[in-house]
């Protein structure tokens, strides 16, 4: 199964053969990889007997996969999506913003589209953010750890899918 589809950044009206080689390409996360990342996070949540919403988003912050484990508070759906989106579109763990606010940069709360709460972790391939995982459910530390457990499974999941392709 193809793990990554190549997307050509759209340039309209180009003459195909001459220009194709110059267009940048990006790698895209597949649903299969997202499932493996979420499964790893779910295993960690179960190990700790936690309830949680686990979300995997693409590099634009849009959900690819979401699962709310039984008995998880419903508010965690939006929070989980927000954390994942933050990690994806700001290309860093959402904890960075939580720390900024804690350290006095209250202005970080005004960032558009950001959920400055730990528990969102980017998924990185070849140095580029291809998506993110967000977790919300119980304590901030647990959310962060469960998200990290998911992100840690990303490399193996990608390799199992046949590696990256241009």
């Amino acid at each position, binding site marked *: 199964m193809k793990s990554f*589809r190549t997307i050509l950044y759209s340039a309209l009206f180009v003459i195909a053969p001459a220009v194709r080689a110059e267009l940048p390409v990006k790698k895209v996360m597949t*649903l299969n990889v997202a499932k493996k990342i979420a499964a790893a996070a779910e295993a960690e949540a179960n190990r700790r007997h936690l309830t949680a919403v686990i979300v995997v988003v693409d590099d634009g912050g*849009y959900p690819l*996969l*979401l*699962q709310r484990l*039984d008995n998880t508070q*419903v508010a965690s759906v939006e929070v989980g999506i927000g954390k994942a989106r933050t990690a994806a579109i700001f290309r860093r763990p959402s904890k960075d913003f939580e720390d900024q606010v804690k350290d006095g940069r209250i202005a970080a709360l005004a960032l558009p589209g950001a959920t400055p709460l730990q528990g969102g972790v980017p998924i990185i391939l070849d140095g580029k953010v291809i998506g993110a995982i967000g977790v919300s459910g119980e304590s901030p530390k647990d959310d962060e750890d469960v998200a990290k457990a998911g992100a840690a499974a990303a490399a193996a999941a990608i390799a199992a899918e046949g590696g990256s392709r241009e």
Partner: protein
Amino acid sequence: MNIFKSTVAAAALLSIAPLAQAQFAETKSLTMDGARRVIDAAVAAANNKKTTGVIAVVDNGGNLMALERIDGTFAAGANISIGKARTALLFQKPTKVFEDIVNKGRTAMVALDGFTPLQGGVPVSVDGQIVGAVGVSGAASAQQDEELAMAGAKAFESGPPPVSYFPKDQVKAAFAKGSVLFDHSDKYMVHASRREQSGMSEIHTKDADIVYVLDGIATLVTGGTAVNSKPIAADEFRGERIDGGETRLLSKGDVIIIPAGVPHWFKEVTNPFLYYVVKAR
């Protein structure tokens, strides 16, 4: 697998328990496993039609439980599918009903809060009770969104399962490499079995093997004592050989039935040895 959970909705707080009973209503809602089953059914339908799509499942309060976006589906589909599922749940009707109402001229209806009047959202019912809803966006057409959602909503429909038909070419191909033809492992399975050499001793603690020999000759040992028998999967043991037991020579046209729990061992086979097996629970 537990696919529903019952919740007791509080109608009166601080009431004394025995008196309160009549003041609570029990409702069923999907569990995570149930939500996955809905998604799997919708994804299977999408694969069948070779289309993309995002599938969202909400519980009986309209809260998102699970979502999957099939590769290649546009990103906006994620939010639209959630909106359709939520609308179907909160209004207890397929969203197509509202799309039709709006299209027929009741435009003011789009002003409703949190309302996605686009076809592709369908309630999921069990025993006449709505337990959740499924929303689909990003298939090839609005009509197809609706079809995938319906396929998901039917995941719990009782009634007989569909008929399975395997044309002879498919059966022949299955015997050529030896494979599972039909897997309904909680009830029965059909294997197109092929052996090219002797096997290990086997014990299936839940499955009986009903065998019809199609080709070749085998020495089959049943009963006796399985040596070094170890669990390899749920309800499955494999061992080195069988000591003692009954030995039979099987050839084309023979039928043998090995009840669950009886050790058996294909001690010797001609290559190939082909046999049709029904595994029954």
